């Protein structure tokens, strides 16, 4: 446990030692701010029955996720392998699982820090809307739960991609490609939508776009939670196997 905490702190610290952490946060803040401005203009023009969290996330949300996830995670293992510190790390009395989980934890904590400005925007909106009930804490909670769940999926994909290679650029590209595949998988069931078949059911399970919309609307479906958690565990397990592969290669 001590090793896990030490390693997580160190990994989290690395984001702020280098420019990368600040650049990613600045990019996310810019896009969140842009969404905020667009949202305000829309609200000024006409009233809408949609929860504002849903409108918010329909704008730049996926752009931020798709681009920030590879950048946040590319360094995790690739950098250590490239510089050789992977060898000094793996010769300390720390288990492979602890290393994988610590790096993943640091990435997801950083990812959630990156989304804090969104919370500020929403609170500003709430303050100026003076008591209207357009923002209930439940919807806000489920939105952030959705952001967190998408985060664990994309961070685990990033961990896996970073463990595969020594080269950070290659790691980022692999992670971006897998992330993009998940994103586009959401569009696959559109032409099939009216039919009732197992293919549609299967595609609905991985339809992260629709799932995120539900979360932003305040709908929490345990099937979605199960999907994100299992997918995350699956990618972390793959990461663990890649790290462990040095033992049997």
């Amino acid at each position, binding site marked *: 446990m*001590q*090793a896990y905490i*030490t*390693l997580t702190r*160190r990994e989290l610290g*690395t984001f702020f*030692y*280098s420019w990368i952490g600040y650049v990613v946060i600045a990019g996310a803040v810019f896009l969140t701010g842009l969404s905020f401005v667009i949202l305000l203009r829309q609200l000024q023009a006409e009233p809408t029955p949609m929860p504002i969290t849903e409108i918010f996330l329909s704008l730049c949300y996926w752009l931020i996720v798709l681009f920030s996830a590879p950048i946040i995670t590319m360094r995790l293992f690739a950098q250590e392998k490239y*510089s*050789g*510190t992977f*060898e*000094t*790390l*793996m*010769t*300390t*009395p*720390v*288990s492979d699982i602890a290393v994988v989980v610590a790096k993943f934890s640091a990435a997801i904590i950083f990812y959630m820090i990156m989304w804090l400005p969104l919370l500020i925007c929403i609170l500003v909106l709430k303050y100026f809307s003076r008591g209207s009930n357009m923002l209930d804490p439940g919807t806000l909670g489920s939105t952030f739960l959705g952001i967190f769940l998408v985060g664990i999926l994309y961070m685990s994909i990033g961990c896996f991609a970073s463990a595969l290679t020594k080269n950070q650029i290659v790691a980022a590209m692999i992670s971006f490609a897998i992330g993009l595949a998940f994103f586009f998988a959401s569009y696959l069931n559109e032409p099939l939508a009216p039919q009732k078949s197992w293919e549609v059911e299967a595609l609905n399970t991985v339809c992260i776009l629709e799932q995120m919309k539900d979360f932003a609307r305040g709908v929490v479906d345990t099937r979605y939670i199960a999907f994100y958690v299992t997918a995350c565990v699956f990618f972390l397990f793959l990461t663990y196997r890649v790290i462990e592969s*040095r*033992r*049997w*290669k």
Partner: protein
Amino acid sequence: MMIEVSNLTKRYAGNTAVSDLSFTVNRGEIVGLLGPNGAGKSTTMRILSCFIPATSGTARVAGLDVFTQANEVRRSIGYMPENNPLHDDMRVREYLKFRARLKGLGLSRSRQRVDAVIAQCGLNDVSKRIVGQLSKGYRQRVGLADALVHEPQLIILDEPTIGLDPSQIRVVRQLIKELGTHHTVLISSHILPEVEMTCNRVMIMRDGRILASDTPENLEKSMGRTGHIIAEIAAPLEDLQACWESMAEVAHFNIAPCEGDYHRCSLTAVGGQDLRPKIFDAVRDRNWKLRELFRLRHSLEDVYIRLTRPESEEETR
């Protein structure tokens, strides 16, 4: 017994890095692993430090098996890999503290040990500097401090002085020598004088096997005595020639003029015997002046070159 390795073999995709290796290292020894690149030194060290497992064979460190009790073994080993990789973005004290905590030391204990290794490795002046900005000599000391921070019984250093300038090498060598008083040390190196000066025992490796294992002195002796003598004598050239020709034990000689009246004579004795007393007597009888007289010895370098020469080269000779 600190290290017991028996029949250790490591194969990477189709090529054998270490083949049927067996050796032991006693507590308190400083042992040097010598060998050309690709001899299997680093692989052996990586197996001992539990980074990679062997294909077959067993290795025990302080009585613990490196495959089944890896975490316990890692606690008793301080390992510095080749090229000494460090986290360049951290400060020296912060890095050492991080490593100490990672190795399972408690909060106050890690603070105490970090202070101790900073003093021991002479890092006081740079403890607040960023690792990436340090000179190579200081980086090497940070690596050593990291290897020492959890008070391991065994210290494994892979090429600790590679890329350092002569004065830095001297400092690191002195540090390693001091380590030998409290720890067992296993170092690998290409640099022969270093091994000769710091190690109690040398193991020479080639193609994943140990070719020789003994003290540096015994290895030199094993090459056999040489009968080459060098003498610098002030005497006329003709007299010197006459003198050596009259001496039955001299198989071959060569005389070259030096500054002043001196001549440098290199003599080869019949059957490798020691000619020095005879030469001294001859010089004294003739009232010549003698300013240098010594027998050429085989160095560890000769042993190393002879043992690590590729087989094909040996055959062509």
